[in-house]
């Protein structure tokens, strides 16, 4: 379903607190389109709803709507890439990953072609239930050899990541936050680089390791507990693959407890990556995994669902207090 309007990429909290950018992905792609004639855009009947419409309007002759056909979308993109183009193709995360998996694995990754898959409605950003909520997409995409996997936090992250993946030669899966997207990271200071985590806040009591929009909520929670003298560090991990294991291990070595926060099931994504990293390096730390359970999530309003499943700053705050109590 396209359900515009009803679905907010983020909670009202971020929206009210800061300013936001309309269609940051589409804006960045248009900038790139002017400089890079090799870039083409594709969608599978979701151009209006995946923020690629600014590119479509700016470069109609370089835009292809393949209709509602996601396997076709990815395979056509792979063909374009092999013939020298740099395709950015958009659909929802569920349809890209579940329906086009074989094409991502073989036509894109196995052949190492330069296709960028941009995936809307990540995790719990839609109330349309199991058919539309991409809650396990990072785990699926992480399993594809050679694929770069990105879950950006805000408009700044999206715009910088779009430029970075255009400069990178190889297949990429990037989650999309669409429409009016809050700005949390200061563009003057933050630098996105593929494969690098960023320490956004220092603190020696507990480490919050986040990806996607949950990093923004981790920052809110860290600030809240900071007022009570608890020092929570925040590490933002926008790239799940390649994974910045060194940054994670370094931070973990400085704290007593690690909390992972992600808009995704707690198996197979960020929490699993952190656990693997720590264990492999012989580090034992209590690990609290905040994210979605291993089940299909019901239909309902986005705010209700995020609250119910703990994708909130309050839930993170509780976890910090419990860990440090």
């Amino acid at each position, binding site marked *: *379903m396209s359900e515009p309007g009803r679905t907010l990429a983020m909670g009202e909290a971020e929206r009210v607190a800061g300013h936001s950018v309309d269609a940051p992905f589409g804006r960045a792609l248009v900038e790139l389109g002017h400089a890079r004639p090799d870039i083409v855009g594709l969608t599978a009947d979701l151009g*209006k709803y995946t923020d690629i419409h600014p590119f479509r309007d700016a470069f109609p002759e370089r835009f292809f709507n393949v209709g*509602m056909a996601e396997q076709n979308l990815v395979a056509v993109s792979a063909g374009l890439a092999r013939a020298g183009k740099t395709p950015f193709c958009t659909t929802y995360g569920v349809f890209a990953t*579940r329906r086009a998996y074989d094409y991502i694995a073989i036509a894109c990754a196995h052949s190492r072609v330069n296709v960028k898959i941009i995936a809307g409605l990540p995790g719990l950003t839609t109330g349309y*239930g199991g*058919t539309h909520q991409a809650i396990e997409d990072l785990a699926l995409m992480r399993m594809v050899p050679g694929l770069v996997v990105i879950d950006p936090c805000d408009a700044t992250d999206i715009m910088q990541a779009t430029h970075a993946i255009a400069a990178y030669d190889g297949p990429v899966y990037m989650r999309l936050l669409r429409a009016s997207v809050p700005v949390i990271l200061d563009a003057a200071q933050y630098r996105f680089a593929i494969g690098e985590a960023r320490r956004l806040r220092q603190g020696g009591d507990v480490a919050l390791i986040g990806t996607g929009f949950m990093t923004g909520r981790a920052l809110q929670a860290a600030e809240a507990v900071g007022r009570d003298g608890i020092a929570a560090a925040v590490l933002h991990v926008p790239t799940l693959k390649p994974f910045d294991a060194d940054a994670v291990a370094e931070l973990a070595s400085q704290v007593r407890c690690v909390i992972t926060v992600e808009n995704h099931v707690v198996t197979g994504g960020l929490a699993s990556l952190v656990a693997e990293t720590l264990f492999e390096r012989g580090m034992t730390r209590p690990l609290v995994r905040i994210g979605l359970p291993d089940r299909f999530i019901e239909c309902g309003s986005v705010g209700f669902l995020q609250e119910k499943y703990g994708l909130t700053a309050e839930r993170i705050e509780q976890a910090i207090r419990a860990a440090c109590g």
Partner: protein
Amino acid sequence: MSASPPLANAPSLAERAYRIRRHALRMGEVQGQGYIAQALGIADVLAVAYFHAMRYRPDDPEWEGRDRFLLSIGHYAIALYAALIEAGIIPDDEIDSYGADGSRLPMSGMASYTPGMEVSGGSLGHGVALAVGFALAMKRKKSDAFVYCLFSDGECGEGSIWEGASGAGHYKLDNLIGIVDVNNQQADGPSSEVTGLENLADRFTAFGWHAQRVNGNDIEALVAAFDTARALTEPKPRVIICDTKMAKGVPFLEERERNHFLRVEPDEWQKAFVALEAGRTA
């Protein structure tokens, strides 16, 4: 309901279609927006399916002898809920819960939520292949029930529709009746531009189906098409391609710029009910 002629005092099919539209508008009003234009467009087809063609027991939606109705297009849930309410399978007083947290009537149709909803259809392109499975099973069970599957023009972009269609032809599934809503609309614009669906009937025919194309807002034509599809003796799956008008029955919405997702302003709902009522023929 049964395939036998309706009782003399039963509401006409036109009246059923009017009521289906009205239920859908009421649900639309609860959420303030939604796939209302699709529901209004397909209401005549659903009236003929549920009140002329199909066999089912309102008080026993799981009755084994029922005809199966598979909604492949989960976003049309508002339309099917309206038909299920009119059929007495869902109580009228659940309308106010449409789309609410915890409701049995979520915005996208799912089998696990709603009585009368046979499959979960929101990930488009599943229905025809599922219908092939249903139809094969009914045959093995020696059931004489039909399997209906409602899918859409935009959905015909999915390769899986054509894999299913090919299988149905190959298995000669004469208990399968496909219904395609051709409203010439999909998410990004007119289906004729986005997908290009020339010769849709010929495509099905080439896959071994019996194909009919009708005005999906003409109840008499629909009755004839459903009768033909059911009575056909040729061992073939059947498809009824229905050209429908989005927002049919509410003229000011029909005239509005065609859109996949219709917005109706708060003050327009009353106007919509009045406009619908004005066109009521029964």
